[in-house]
């Protein structure tokens, strides 16, 4: 599988106290470990098991994901705009890899 790519929609500007919407999607098979390949061998599980949104390194929202999350997970969550800085989305893979994307936001 090609390296996962993360797409997100996060506003670049917000007013202090505004609740912003964060939409994010990562390309990932989210292989459940329940399927078999053509030879009858079980395809090992490989999913994103954790998703973390941080704003200037403070955790906003996180999620523990299980096999019932769809392939190419597409999620929406929210954040309260308090100060300008960086919003980081982190996707933790079963393999131990962490895929991240950082967006800048200006809060006025």
């Amino acid at each position, binding site marked *: 599988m090609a390296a996962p790519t993360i797409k997100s929609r996060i506003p670049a500007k917000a007013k202090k106290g505004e609740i912003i919407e964060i939409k994010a999607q990562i390309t990932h098979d989210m292989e459940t470990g329940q*399927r078999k390949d053509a030879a009858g061998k079980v395809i090992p599980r490989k999913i994103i098991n954790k998703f973390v949104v941080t704003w200037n390194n403070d955790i906003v*929202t996180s999620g523990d994901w299980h096999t019932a999350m769809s*392939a*190419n997970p597409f999620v929406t969550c929210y954040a309260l705009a308090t100060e300008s800085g960086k919003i980081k989305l982190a996707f933790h893979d079963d393999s131990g890899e962490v895929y991240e994307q950082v967006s800048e936001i200006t809060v006025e």
Partner: protein
Amino acid sequence: MAKKVEGWSRRDVLAAAGIGCVAMAAPKMAQATPQEADDLVKKLIGGAAPKEGKVQLKIKDVAESGAAEPIAVSVDSPMSAADHVKAIHVVAEGNPAPGVSSWFLTPKSGKAEVAFRMRLAKTQVVRAYAVMSDGSVWMAKQEIKVTIGGCGG
């Protein structure tokens, strides 16, 4: 969108052709039961007794596809430091594993709402639980009919 990703395109094709039933047979034998879902909920929320209300589960009555069904959970809460939602747990009664996802919110979340797409193996009841900062637990549940994901289930 998902068509280009290896593996999923194959499943889509199989499911569409109806041969998918063969591939789906194995997980079908190991499906969770409402009892297993209850056990998982106990683990997630402890001894608290969930009350119905406050939680809104936005999900269709009939799923278009069991592979990626949009679901949104929102909870009535001011999300202040004193009164906020700490966790949202989504549990499926009829999937191979009952856990779908657990979300941990903070006052910085601003709004107690999350949305994502989930897999549904067959027609089943989906439940959402919200754990509040005062320790109370609220829930909502809804049945969703699945025709493609579960081979006509």
